[in-house]
């Protein structure tokens, strides 16, 4: 797979440590694709290059803005926004949790509104503006919600955190962070299996009460 580097960010550092694991996953995916696809795809697979497998299927052009940067892509209609962000744009901050819209780990903003990227077909995002966790900070300066999550220990393992933070920012923007009860209701689409909920609520309340622009 072609490795594009559209954004610089914390993830670039992680790439070094994670490269062996990620390559393994990509290779496993390739093997699965070979096992499942007949005919033309098998011929493409003979070259042992996964781009060729993908090219054996019909691709469509997709233009969207991701974190302020225009992206002109070629995607299969069945690719989800989540997979395109992670696999084609290397924006691996957005996490794949359940992959079925039940956990919220994949939450991103589309034209300013939070959605589950795992249930969104990328091809339907033509002309849209996407913001992921990588696009939230202002250069090296973290977004107030990112600062608050660190200060209040709003995570343990951290896997749900990008989705939690994207949802938390939207929660305040929507005007649904006026009480602990309301925050809990409007954050219910983001599951934290470590159970960091009280600290997440505290982080959101601090940002809300601080009146900072989110």
């Amino acid at each position: 797979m072609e490795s594009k580097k559209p954004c610089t960010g914390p993830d670039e550092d992680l790439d070094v440590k994670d490269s062996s694991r990620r390559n393994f996953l990509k290779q496993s995916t390739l093997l699965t694709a070979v096992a499942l696809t007949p005919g033309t795809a098998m011929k493409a697979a003979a070259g042992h290059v996964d781009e060729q497998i993908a090219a054996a299927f019909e691709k469509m052009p997709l233009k969207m803005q991701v974190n302020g940067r225009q992206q002109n892509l070629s995607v299969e209609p069945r690719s989800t926004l989540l997979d395109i962000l992670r696999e084609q744009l290397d924006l691996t901050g957005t996490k794949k949790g359940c992959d079925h819209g039940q956990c919220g780990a994949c939450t991103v903003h589309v034209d300013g509104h939070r959605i589950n990227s795992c249930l969104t077909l990328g091809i339907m995002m033509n002309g849209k503006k996407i913001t992921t966790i990588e696009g939230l900070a202002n250069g090296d300066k973290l977004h107030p919600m990112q600062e608050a999550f660190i200060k209040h220990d709003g995570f343990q393992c951290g896997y749900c955190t990008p989705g939690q933070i994207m949802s938390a920012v939207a929660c305040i923007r929507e005007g649904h962070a006026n009480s602990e009860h309301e925050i809990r209701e409007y954050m219910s689409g983001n599951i934290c299996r470590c159970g960091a909920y009280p600290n997440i609520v505290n982080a959101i309340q601090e940002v809300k009460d601080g009146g900072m622009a989110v």
Partner: protein
Amino acid sequence: MKQFQYVKPATQQAVLDAVGKPGSKIIAGGTNLVDLMKRGVMAPDKLVDINQLPLKNIGITKNGLHIGALALNSVVSENNLVAQNQPLLAMALKSGASPQLRNMATVGGNMMQRTRCGYFYDTTMPCNKRVPGTGCGAMEGINRMHAIFGASPQCIAVHPSDMCIALAVLDAIVIIAGKKGERRLPFTEFHRLPGDHPELDNRLAKDELIVGVEIPDNNFAKSSYYLKIRDRQSYAFALVSVAAALEIDNGLIKNARLAMGGVAHKPWRLFDAEKSLVGKPATEENFAHAAQLAMQGAISHGGNSFKLKLAPATITEALKHAAGLV
């Protein structure tokens, strides 16, 4: 996910032309369809994206409140006209799914989400709805979430929508476009009971398109309530839900509407219970009596027998909230 072709027609006519073909399926928000396609439960050859159609409008017409089929669940739930005229609808919508999903899901798509259960999702299990004739895994299986009304030996799945329960109570009309023009269908007739064809959830023909819903004016805004009982406080399907709408004049009930969710293959209107309330004082005793009437004909299947007690209690409680007794 199986490969499919993707088209995004610019006009309603082009959508109608495209959806009539075998293997075609409309996509709007995709929250249910994409999920089912990922699991291999549904596998259309072609997706027809209707998001280019101008069907997002929410407005007052001579017939009442009109809501376009592509209006988002989140937008409808926060809309001022809806809050003023049909607060029950906003309340039901806000209790459904998660904020992220409500930002994707449309009114038409909410209606078209599949009536379903775990066996429908699990492609290794029998399911008459997924593959007609294979049997019903739930009937003798895990059926805690399942129907107590209107089921057939073929299927005991329930329709999970909250929005649809409110629209059934509010006597909404579904506006449907087809090649021969528009037709109007009472909301309570839109969804089907399973009978011998559980693979069919509703009465929309393959070559038709929902363009909107209309809610006729009513006097329920002051005394209506949506009560949803679920395993966790938020973001879960209803075990039982009740939409209650009353028109109360000097303590007497002039008009009543009731429907239950989580108990049937379609939004389940409680016509006998409604009739029993008209002309009576709005008291807990009368509400409990109506709830008992509503339960006539209920049948449980083992795992869901708790619903036989939970449902009438929820009806009574929802009516108390609607009448301001709580």
